């Protein structure tokens, strides 16, 4: 039986306050041990193009990231598939100034993209306080973000395998 590769990816820079949302969610998921065994969790940090292989091999990709939607700080937004590129990844992730949508586009060019992508984004309060950890507002949003993420994973599971 072919198993579906499901990857949970947290991206962002821990050194820039709420920019560290994605990696912090991964920390919490690992510490609480709530992910199904077959799901791979990955702290993508600011790896940029180095994330390409992880994206190419994922059939389902769940991404946690801080995204500026212009909403109230700490608010969570869930975006799926086609809705994603228009909204996020425009700021450079670092490695060679590659943004996350650049990595997605690169994966698409190589002909290997996940069948389904969901982004769970938080509205940051502060992203330019260097050396800081998450603001209280964004840290408080993590449990809600995780609950939404787990719901997405179980929805994928019940939907069954890709063709």
């Amino acid at each position, binding site marked *: 039986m072919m198993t579906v590769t499901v990857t949970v990816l947290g991206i962002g820079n821990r*050194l820039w306050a709420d920019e560290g949302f994605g990696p912090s969610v991964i920390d919490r998921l690992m510490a609480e041990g709530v992910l199904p065994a077959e799901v791979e969790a990955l702290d993508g940090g*600011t*790896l*940029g*193009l*180095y994330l*390409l*292989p992880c994206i190419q091999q994922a059939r389902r990709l769940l991404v946690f990231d801080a995204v500026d939607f212009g909403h109230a700080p700490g608010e969570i937004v869930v975006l799926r598939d086609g809705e994603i*590129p*228009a909204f996020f990844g*425009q*700021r*450079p992730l*670092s*490695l*060679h*100034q*590659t*943004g996350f*949508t*650049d990595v*997605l*586009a*690169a994966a*698409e*060019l*190589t*002909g290997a993209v996940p069948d389904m992508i969901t982004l769970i984004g938080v509205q940051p309060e502060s992203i*330019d306080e*260097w*050396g800081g950890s998450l603001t209280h507002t964004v840290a408080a949003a993590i449990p809600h973000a995780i609950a939404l993420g787990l719901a997405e994973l179980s929805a994928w599971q019940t939907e069954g395998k890709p063709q």
Partner: protein
Amino acid sequence: MSRIVTPNGFELDNSGRRIAIDPVTRIEGHLRIEVNVDDANVIRNAVSVGTMWRGLEIIMKDRDPRDAWAFVQRICGVCTGVHALASIRAVEDALKIEIPRNANIIRNIMHFTLYAHDHLVHFYHLHALDWVDIVSALKADPKATSDLAQSLSPWPKSSVGYFKDIQGRVKKLVGSGQLGPFRNGYWGHPAYKLPPEANLMAVAHYIEALDFQREIVKIHAVFGGKNPHPNWLVGGVPATINVHSAGAVGAINVERLNLVLKIAQMTQTFISQVYIPDLMAIASFYKDWTKWGGGLSGKNLLCYGDFPSRANDDSNDSLMLPRGAILNGDLSTIHPVDLRDPTHIQEFVPHSWYRYPDEKAGLHPWDGITELDFRLGAKTQGGKNGSAIDAFDENEKYSYVKAPRWKGHAMETGPLPRLVLAYAMGRRDIKELVDGALRKLDLPLPALFSTLGRTAARGLEAQWAADRLVEEVHHLIDQVKAGNLDTANTEKWSPTTWPAEAKGVGYAEAPRGALGHWIVIRDQKIANYQAVVPTTWNASPRDNAGAIGAYEAALLGTPMADPKQPLEILRTIHSFDPCLACATHVVGPDGGPLTTVQVL
């Protein structure tokens, strides 16, 4: 000032219009370039501003020298490994630790792998789009593209259907309006010269290289456990060899060695059948670029050398890439370079945001000081009350990059200096490679001292490194067959065996140039740590005497088609493969997705 001649012989004129580009994209880190152009849009003054501060020297203080490699390696996620290599060499030099032959071979294998990977990624993913017009590729005829590809190389992926498919994928991406990695291009700029078919072929190889580059780095994972940031070890390599596949888990066995050999051979094939033919094809359309971008390259070149063929021997008899300096373009005299001599390498800060007790003097890295001093010159434009800076004042402090000098001279470092030095020293392997390429392009040797020459040298060096990589893997297999399995010397692992004070220097030739780490160990801890990296040399600001650095020099005299679309500046700056994360000693807030180009 309006018009001056610098001590290193360049005429500067800052009276014309000022153009600021911030940040320069498709590089690692943050670099701002300002130029003045005359009425004909020719660059007459150039200012290279490193806008990040690194601070790693301060983080290293009081740490265990055996751990230093793991910290300094994080200076950069691109030339991963090379800072670790320079660091363990510095510690071994200080503590007089000799490494076993296998450790030397494995380090060379790691380092050749990095060269092949880094040069390939630079060419296709950071630099090619300066020469290749993505949008023009949509107009290509797949049949003619296939014919072109087959006339250049035996590489099998060259069918009409293949290029049609690639064109379809690019069309979809461009049509979606989400250009992704192609977002910041100046598509349709008059300085693009390739026919549509050459553009499509190059785009196809851009995509192939994306997939291929991740194969190459598996070699790092085999010997260093992971990539990026593989593991290293003071005294050897952290990889045990176990050919009996019993005992140590994760040890290097015959299966692993065969995998490494296979990847090395694939790398060699990809470079010789894809990278080099593309490079030659692109170069043949851009011979104009042998006229511009030379800067310091035709004058002052610096190499620390690398790839010892004998363990613990860094003499030029042993180094596969030699050490030495060339001054004033005189290829007949090779000057010896001594990384320990306090008069050889010095860093100056009169134009850098650091403070020295005496700013007229330079400091050797063993005595180096990293103390911040951010001040703007009186003629800075903008920057008042927290507003953005429009133009920096190059007469005062203007960069977080220090100004390193060799015996007082501003120097260029990188693949071009390495090949030219080896060529001048009569190294046959390099000479054949360089002469072959020049013959093919029908260009004379001095054509190398240019933007195109720098880019070509990197490709030729990638080929050289892939060839040596395969040889070095065979050497390792021979060693293992002969029963030599030793990979580490742990005699001096315990700090109780160390002297109360020791100083060391670790050299390396990073893909983008000469890299030195200087360490002072006192009471078993790091008392001082200084890294002078390739981009510190190349992105150097002016020094105490007013001599300009390699980027600044290389931009002078270049005509621009349209200052609002500074493609010409990107070509020359990218030809150096800048790595500012490493050159600058946190970061201003990101400038947003698109580079700001300001014509003042």
